[in-house]
């Protein structure tokens, strides 16, 4: 187990190193001068040069890179060009929105997909199964942002049950904040549920054909026990893998939904930062996202072992 951890840690560090070089180089050659974006199109060259010097943009590639990584290793955050505050605080602040939203979305996805997938598997090729499969096709085909807008029109504009967007902040209004995340999380969750439902169905179908399931049935266990205890546990391994990937994706990829609901989350932060060429913010977030994906997958690996004792982490 210890060796496994060490191995994972080394992979993580190597990966972050590679990501850091890549993201830094890409941003370095990307056209678009942060100073010009801040000062606007009528700024004089003299002022542009002054601001570039202040932001350290006139330094060499190596100097800028070591500045960034050096500070990062020392745990010191760079300042956001756009927001004039430490990038770490920005990331933490936006994670307080995106993190819970991603978790709630996954919860929605799980609650929808597991029962539906199992139901479909047990009624394979019968009308119930066909209906569920049709529903998942629809779920996959609907674009997130459009579904988000539909939800807003119905629940916010027509019914007035939810606000159309925005985020009051956990400290000032806990329930309001939770409520603000429900619609976007639902929009995100439904799409993911479609994938998970299909996966649950096929995974269950496969497991239900196994010999041990027949044995379990033969020894007279109740069908419920067979399905929910014996079969489901084994069917969960591929489902968890995909869920882990989805969670990682949600942390990084909720850009569109966060824009539709104007939530101050990580996706919108990085989206705006790229547009504004707020390079310190973009760099740190990309690194963070890469790390998040690795860590989530690592946790998924751990749960494999818990689910299936035959799997050993080495």
């Amino acid at each position, binding site marked *: 187990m210890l060796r496994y951890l060490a191995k994972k840690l080394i992979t993580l560090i190597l990966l972050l190193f590679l990501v850091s070089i890549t993201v830094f180089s890409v941003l370095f050659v*990307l*056209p*678009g*001068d942060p100073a*010009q*974006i*801040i*000062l*606007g*199109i*009528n*700024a*004089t060259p*003299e*002022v542009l040069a*002054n*601001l570039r010097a*202040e932001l350290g943009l006139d330094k060499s590639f190596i100097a800028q890179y070591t500045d960034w990584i050096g500070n990062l290793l020392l745990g010191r955050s760079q300042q956001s*060009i*756009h*927001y*004039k*505050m430490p990038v770490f605080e*920005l990331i933490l*602040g*936006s994670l307080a929105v995106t993190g819970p939203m991603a978790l709630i979305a996954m919860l929605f996805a799980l609650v929808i997909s597991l029962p539906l997938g199992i139901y479909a598997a047990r009624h394979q090729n019968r009308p119930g199964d066909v209906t569920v499969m049709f529903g998942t096709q629809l779920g996959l085909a609907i674009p997130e942002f459009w579904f988000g*807008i539909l939800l*807003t*029109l119905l629940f*916010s*504009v027509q019914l*007035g049950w*939810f*606000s*159309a*967007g*925005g*985020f009051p*902040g956990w400290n000032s209004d806990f329930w309001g904040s939770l409520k603000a995340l429900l619609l976007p999380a639902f929009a995100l969750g439904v799409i993911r549920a479609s994938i998970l439902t299909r996966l649950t169905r096929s995974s269950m179908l496969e497991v239900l054909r196994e010999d041990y399931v027949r044995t379990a049935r033969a020894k007279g266990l109740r069908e419920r026990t067979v399905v929910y205890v014996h079969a489901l546990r084994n069917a969960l391994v591929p489902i968890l893998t995909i869920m882990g990937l989805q969670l990682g994706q949600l942390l990084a990829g909720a850009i569109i939904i966060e*824009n*539709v*609901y*104007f939530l*101050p*989350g990580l996706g*919108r*932060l990085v989206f*705006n930062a790229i*547009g*504004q*060429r707020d390079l310190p913010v973009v760099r740190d977030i990309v690194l963070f996202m890469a790390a998040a994906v690795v860590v989530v997958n690592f946790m998924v690996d751990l749960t494999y072992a818990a689910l299936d004792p035959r799997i050993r982490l080495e």
Partner: protein
Amino acid sequence: MKKLVLLLIAMALIVPASWASAATPQKGGSLIIAVGDEPPGLDPTASASAAIDRVVYANIMEGLVKVDRNGQFVPGLATKWDVSPDGKVYTFNLRQGVNFHNGEPFNAQVAKWNLERASAEGTKNAHPEFFRVIAKIETPDGNRLKLTLKDVDALFIARMAEGDAVMLPMKGYENMAAEPIGTGPFKFAKWTRGDSVEMVSNAKYWNSQLPYLDKVTFRFIKDPSAQVAALKAGDIDIIGWLFAAELAADIAKDKRFKVLAGASTSELIMSTNNKVKPFDNKLVRQAMAYAIDRQTVIDLIMAGYGTVIGSHWPPVTPYYKDMTARFPYDLKKARELMAQAGYPNGFEATIKLPAIYAYAQRAGEVIADMLGQIGIKLKIEVVEWGVWLDRVFKQKDFQLSMIGHSEAWDIGIYSNPNYYFQYDSQEFRDAYAKALKAPNEAEKTKWFGRCQEIVAEDAVNGFLFLTPALSAMKMELMDWWENYPTIAMDATQVWWQK
């Protein structure tokens, strides 16, 4: 047409004033304003970004001179100013007993320090040239500021009314971009990054009657349909700048809301690279000017809101000269000019459109179709904003583009041959120099008018229309600015009817 425009302007000037007198403002209440862009910092003296001025200018920070609803220059922190007969010495009488939000007093010393700071070596003010015309700053007493200019500058007062010239406190100025401190009717309260900026009423404001509101929140919502949904759901009170003009009619139909469609200072132009073939040929540019049906452009991309322009000057700004009749929509003339220029069968060209402005993109598509009528086949290329700034603006690697120029007094960009559209005309430079040195109003009108004329005649860029200042708000919200003659969303005199 000219009469119609004049009439419209006159109406725009009269209507809000009569509304203002229709009812007595009531105090209290809070206001949530939706705007699209989050400002890059909150210090107007550190960036020319319009997003900063929209939030901060006139609300939190003020300069010596202000712009009123009609685009006129009125007293701000200066109660009045005198200009010497030779136009070189300005004496400002400063308002007494004014304090910054942090308690520091405002006086002539502070004003002097601000003006010096803006033009100093190593300045980060986006427009140090506004201030470098000042040769000498004297403070005869604590409340008077005497400025001696190097030369006559007809735009000096206009410059002093820009966001770049707001007054900052001498001590607490370092952290302005994160926590702005000014003398305005509202005090900065909180900036929730990615979400909103909050400000509360300044109880010690120099005009004790103002402001009427207790609290103002600017909320950043970029997506046009999300803005409208938020208004209808009651999460915001007003959309300060409605991007989706096509939704305006739908909002106005709703009894709970009203839509104001005034004039802004932002001219949408089809920027043209005057140094690359075939656009270096004046006849080609004039042919394009004839081939563009401006009213149809407005109808198609702005749902009919917007004012046709014929040159680079907002009709709401003083010294405006109407040049819209110079190139009426006339395909026959356009084709003749194309033939004269040596392109009877037209040519192919590329138009680069900035992705962040939806209206610029749509206008590009409409224009491409119109120019197709005279044989100019346009290839449309949509580029991201940073790339636009680099390729189009800095490296001038483009033939045609489309962009809104939002600063009001910026016709001077045509005197710089290195500016991205690379217009090089001695005639214009001479006229502009004369305008800047004009000693009186009649001369200013004459020479600024001449500048507009030359630029129109040379068809330097495709002058399309003045972007409408479209705002949509709850019915009970009173005295919001109908026109935006300066880049600001001034909530000082806005109030709720109860």
